């Protein structure tokens, strides 16, 4: 692919056989990431690494399905997760949209992407947590939110203030992990994914040769 021509994306092409098989991998990575984070007693959830990874490689639609499926499956054990399905879908969509526009190859671009991703997740989670659960969900950060609420802070402000910081941090770490993984995937595997060519190593050289 030369620099001048832009790739056309289509939903049907997005859901290739390989993309279909990468969804379960994303779901499992989400699950294990969250498990590992609590095993190592880290203060972050880190349970969207898989969704972000799939969205970075296969675009927004496949990413959204990964998020949806993760929450459906974790919902089987704890139906509270069903309420957060929209958050998971939006995480996939936003990341995928950035990936489509090649936002993860230059450092200042992915910095912007991370902040927007963090903001999107907190803004989509806030109405659910505040209106359905009254501001607390029983997680560690909820305790801080509850303290702020007790001190007289507005419920929306208390939630967005505490969870906002954790969310942006969560996204930064998740994207860094995904970039680290993508860096070591061989080119021949990368080009099989619909957004994979953005991460191909030595892009310029390859473009010159193919021209």
């Amino acid at each position, binding site marked *: 692919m030369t620099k001048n021509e832009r790739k056309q994306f289509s939903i049907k092409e997005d*859901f290739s*056989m*390989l993309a*279909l*098989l*990468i*969804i*379960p*991998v994303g*779901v*499992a*990575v989400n*699950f*294990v*990431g969250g*498990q*590992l*984070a609590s095993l*190592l*007693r*880290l*203060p972050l959830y*880190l349970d969207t*690494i*898989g969704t972000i*990874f799939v969205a970075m490689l296969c675009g927004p639609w496949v990413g959204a*399905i990964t998020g949806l*499926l993760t929450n459906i*499956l974790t*919902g*089987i*054990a*704890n*139906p*509270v997760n*069903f309420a957060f399905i929209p958050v998971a879908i939006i995480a996939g969509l936003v990341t995928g949209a950035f990936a489509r526009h090649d936002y993860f190859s230059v450092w200042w671009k992915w910095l912007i992407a991370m902040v927007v991703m963090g903001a999107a997740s907190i803004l989509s989670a806030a109405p659910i947590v505040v209106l*359905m*659960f*009254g*501001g*607390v*969900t*029983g997680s560690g950060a*909820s305790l801080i939110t*509850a303290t702020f*609420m*007790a001190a007289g802070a507005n419920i929306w402000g208390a939630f967005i203030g505490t969870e906002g910081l954790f969310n942006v941090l969560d996204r930064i770490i998740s994207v860094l*992990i*995904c970039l*680290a*993984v993508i860096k*070591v*995937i061989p080119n021949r*595997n990368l080009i*099989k994914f619909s957004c994979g060519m953005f991460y191909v190593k030595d892009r310029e050289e390859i473009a010159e040769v193919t021209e």
Partner: protein
Amino acid sequence: MEKTFTEKIQINKRNKIAGLYPATKLQIVILFSISTLIINSIKLTDAKLALLLIPWFALVPFMFAITGEFKKSMKSMKPIFVVAIFIIAVQTFIVSGGQTLWHWHFLSIREKGLQTAISLGFLVLNIAGMFTWMLQSTSTKEISRCFEESGMNFKVAYIFTSSLEMIKVFSKRSQTILDAQRSRGVETEGNLKVRAKAFFPTIVPLILGGIIGSEDRVLTLEARGFSIKGEHTHLFDLKKSGYERRMLVVSIIITLLIIAGRISLWRMK
């Protein structure tokens, strides 16, 4: 006589309620959720509390009991109880507004806080509880087969079952990787910085392994004619228990009675 493989993988439930068709169970859960929301709108006592939600919750353990999986289901209700108790505690003591009903040192219960506490807490308990009933009494094999029978693409059903398998495989693999990293000196105990450092060398190989392995799985599936056009055959058959109609009629009647009760309450005012 020894059973064949196809006979072995069939699910035969003796309990008629547990063996309900998965789609019927979902319909019952939806009707129950609608009823719960209607009951939530009925406020009792001067403080306007949705107290009726509390006896309504008795239906959840009742359903667990008639399904014959009371203990197992109650066990999986644990995380939901935690969330509900948390919600009730926070709302009761923290949200201000309205009259003060009870006061002790720094703790005080306000009218508005108690209102949201009871209605939010029990809404979560009721609706999540009924979902627990549905999901605990249905195996994932049945759910994915039901997806297919209700006209969804077979690929959806495949992704669903495959994800569940993948979670098991990855959990095991992450343990192996963690052990391997420990044995070569990566520390997993200690302060936050040390523990955070252990996260990266565990998750990166895990994702990488998954990506590289998925190519092989594409070949394996294609070799078995996965994306072939034409009718697919199944080894596992979904059976109906024969109680679908009865259970659905009972749920519809209860829902209608609750709606009627709500409307007559409006009239009385």
